[in-house]
């Protein structure tokens, strides 16, 4: 019985008006749904689960590092903890986080479509993701792996302990889910825009998801083939990375980073799209420099493919190659800075309401600036050689991935929560959680910049006692961060049952997703929307002002 079959008693118009949440209550109506909104919810539940596993691993790491001795975990146990943390966070939380939940839900709504172009493919992506997730779960239960999330050869192929093949397989399979999602987004954005929704009227969230879809489709297969060769080498002794046969272990690093550096932009580009929406809505002001922000997303996606070598400055790469990669890596700062300046200029003289989503967005901007500027430092050959493989690098990429992407994910979740669930969350608690996250994050990771600069290497759990004070600060911050992540889980779930019902447009924002009811009906719009206005036209008298929203 499909979701629609339940509703045979009702009039067709009635079905069109029923919220997607009420279009069937059985488990089957969820697990076999092709509705992009329900699939987004399925993804949301799954990635929250993986986030929790990765968070437990992070907690183990931070607790171990409270003392200079290795007293909580063994060497091997510590290696496994940071490997599980990295693998789970990167492939099972960060990469699918914004695109597959918020993006899946919002892209059709924002462009005025009834669904994604290939709804069944969308469901298939979720199932593929879940198969990959089960493999990953098996790895966790089987005791984990000690390769780190980067799987460097020949460690991974010859010496590593643990469920290496299952891990590689999990990541390999999850890649297909990503590719199909990217394909679906690209075709949807090209072919399903509502009448009048020209490219110049697309919300910037769509532009950044278009950019990230390009990376999904073009970078992920390279990871797939790399992992395939890796698994072949591990299982059959077949492969091209084995130095004892005259193969090249560096080739693995080239191939891996050819995917994994763009993967960093997979994690941050959707976050940038979210921030563009949050900032314009929070300031009730037209975005400053629409085309600059839009093209900056595309520019980041393109440059993303040309900078992988900056992970290999000390891996025996030629100085010429390193110099070229260094220059290209610095070039990424240009589109990134354009975005930061334009968001700031959008906030300037705006009609600002400091609600939780905007707090998260401003948190993103600040943390992204710190992460970006330290990224520039790391792109310099001389500095990189000094701080390579230290906590400086760890702090840098956590500022981008956690400070940036996770903050944006939470901001997006708060901002679109009324639309997704039809309920309003508690704004006071929302603001407290947002501030707590920003403070806790800085307390966790700023000391790591100092640690790294002083020479604390990453992936060690026994360290000289002079580093202990900073490690204690970091662990204390991680505790705060944990509370900040747990809070929304409670008050958002609480709002599902007890929250006030949300109006169609609680923020008084522009954008097609706010023109339909909250939560939207099964096919998103009762009538085909037609777009006649420019994006973010807040300067016009908007029919629903913030006050009566």
């Amino acid at each position, binding site marked *: 019985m499909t979701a629609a079959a339940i509703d045979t008693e009702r009039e067709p118009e009635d079905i069109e008006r029923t919220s997607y949440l009420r279009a069937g209550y059985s488990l089957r109506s969820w697990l076999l749904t092709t509705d992009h909104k329900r699939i987004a919810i399925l993804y949301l539940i799954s990635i929250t689960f993986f986030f929790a596993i990765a968070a437990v691993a992070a907690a183990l790491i931070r607790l171990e590092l409270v003392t200079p001795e290795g007293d909580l975990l063994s060497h091997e146990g510590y290696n496994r903890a940071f490997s599980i943390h990295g693998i789970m966070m990167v492939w099972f939380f960060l990469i699918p986080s914004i695109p597959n939940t918020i993006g899946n839900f919002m892209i059709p709504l924002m462009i005025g479509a009834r669904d994604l172009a290939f709804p069944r493919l969308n469901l298939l992506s979720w199932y593929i993701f879940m198969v990959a997730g089960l493999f990953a779960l098996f790895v966790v239960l089987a005791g984990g792996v000690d390769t780190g999330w980067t799987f460097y050869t020949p460690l991974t192929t010859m010496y590593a302990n643990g469920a290496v093949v299952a891990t590689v397989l999990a990541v390999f399979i999850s890649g297909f889910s990503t590719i199909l999602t990217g394909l679906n987004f690209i075709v949807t954005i090209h072919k399903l825009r509502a009448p009048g929704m020209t490219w110049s009227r697309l919300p910037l969230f769509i532009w950044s998801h278009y950019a990230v879809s390009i990376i999904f*489709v073009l970078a992920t297969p*390279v990871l*797939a083939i790399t992992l395939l060769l890796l698994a072949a080498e591990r299982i059959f002794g*077949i492969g091209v990375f084995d130095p004892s046969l005259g193969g090249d272990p560096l080739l693995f690093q080239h191939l891996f980073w050819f995917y994994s550096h763009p993967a960093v932009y997979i994690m941050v580009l959707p976050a940038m799209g979210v921030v563009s929406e949050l900032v314009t809505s929070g300031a009730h002001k037209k975005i400053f420099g629409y085309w600059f922000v839009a093209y900056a997303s595309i520019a980041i996606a393109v440059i993303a493919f040309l900078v992988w070598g900056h992970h290999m400055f000390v891996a025996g790469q030629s100085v010429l190659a390193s110099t070229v990669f260094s220059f290209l890596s610095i070039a990424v700062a240009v589109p990134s800075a354009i975005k930061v300046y334009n968001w700031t200029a959008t906030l300037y003289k705006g009609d600002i309401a400091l609600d939780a989503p905007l707090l998260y967005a401003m948190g993103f901007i600040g943390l992204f600036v710190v992460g970006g500027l330290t990224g520039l430092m790391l792109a310099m050959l001389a500095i990189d050689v000094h701080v390579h493989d230290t906590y400086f690098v760890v702090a840098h990429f956590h500022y981008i991935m956690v400070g940036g992407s996770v903050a944006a994910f939470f901001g997006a979740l708060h901002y679109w929560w009324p639309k997704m669930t039809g309920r309003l969350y508690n704004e006071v608690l929302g603001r407290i959680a947002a501030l707590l996250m920003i403070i806790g994050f800085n307390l966790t990771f700023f000391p790591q910049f100092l640690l790294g600069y002083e020479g604390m290497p990453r992936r060690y759990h026994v360290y000289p006692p002079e580093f202990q004070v900073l490690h204690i600060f970091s662990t204390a911050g991680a505790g705060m961060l944990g509370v900040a992540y747990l809070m929304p889980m409670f008050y958002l779930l609480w709002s599902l049952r007890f929250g006030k019902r949300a109006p169609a447009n609680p923020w008084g924002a522009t954008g097609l997703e706010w023109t339909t009811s909250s939560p939207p009906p099964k096919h998103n719009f009762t009538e085909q929307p037609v777009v006649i206005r420019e994006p973010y036209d807040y300067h016009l008298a908007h029919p629903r002002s913030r006050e009566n929203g």
Partner: protein
Amino acid sequence: MAEQSRAEIQFHNIDRQREADRLGMLVFLASEIMLFGGVFLAAFSLRMLSPDEYVSASSHMKLWHGTANTAILLASSMLAALAVEMASSSNPKWAGRCLWSAVGLGIVFLGVKAHEYYLDYLDGKLPGAANAHFSSEFEQLFSNFYFTATGLHALHVTGGLALLSTAALRRSARHDCHAILIGNAALYWHLVDIVWIFLYPTIYLAGASA
């Protein structure tokens, strides 16, 4: 399916749906090209690291098997292209015949490949097999690469055959004058073909003159 006059609910009209189906396949092919891109990068870096050993290892490949397979796959690809032409000029009977011939040649390709693998096994060139013996370490590395690359390609050939057969079996696809399903299957088949056209010189011709 392909011949349906009404679009699925998310599309504004049937033309938009046809365009979307085609675009989806093209984007997928882009991703497939990147997948094989990694394979070719591995081959080129092997050759750059050890140019002489590469040529010598390549000279032990079964050149005639590779050459025959190139011809077979090219012919099959042409038949797939003809099927698209037949379907779009409303000639469903010949569209079906062309598709089945393309499938037949694809199966012949796999047969030749299997025979070649068997001969390689007899020669002791199959890494991991009990009788495996290599004249040099690099030859083993090359052999590893050869089996991984052609094995992955053979997997794609199998997928392509499934797609072509689906198109040939569906009456609606044969009668679709827009040739959406047949066109997409043929596009995929051309990709399989093109990948082979690059694999052929990389594996067989590099050592042909040695």
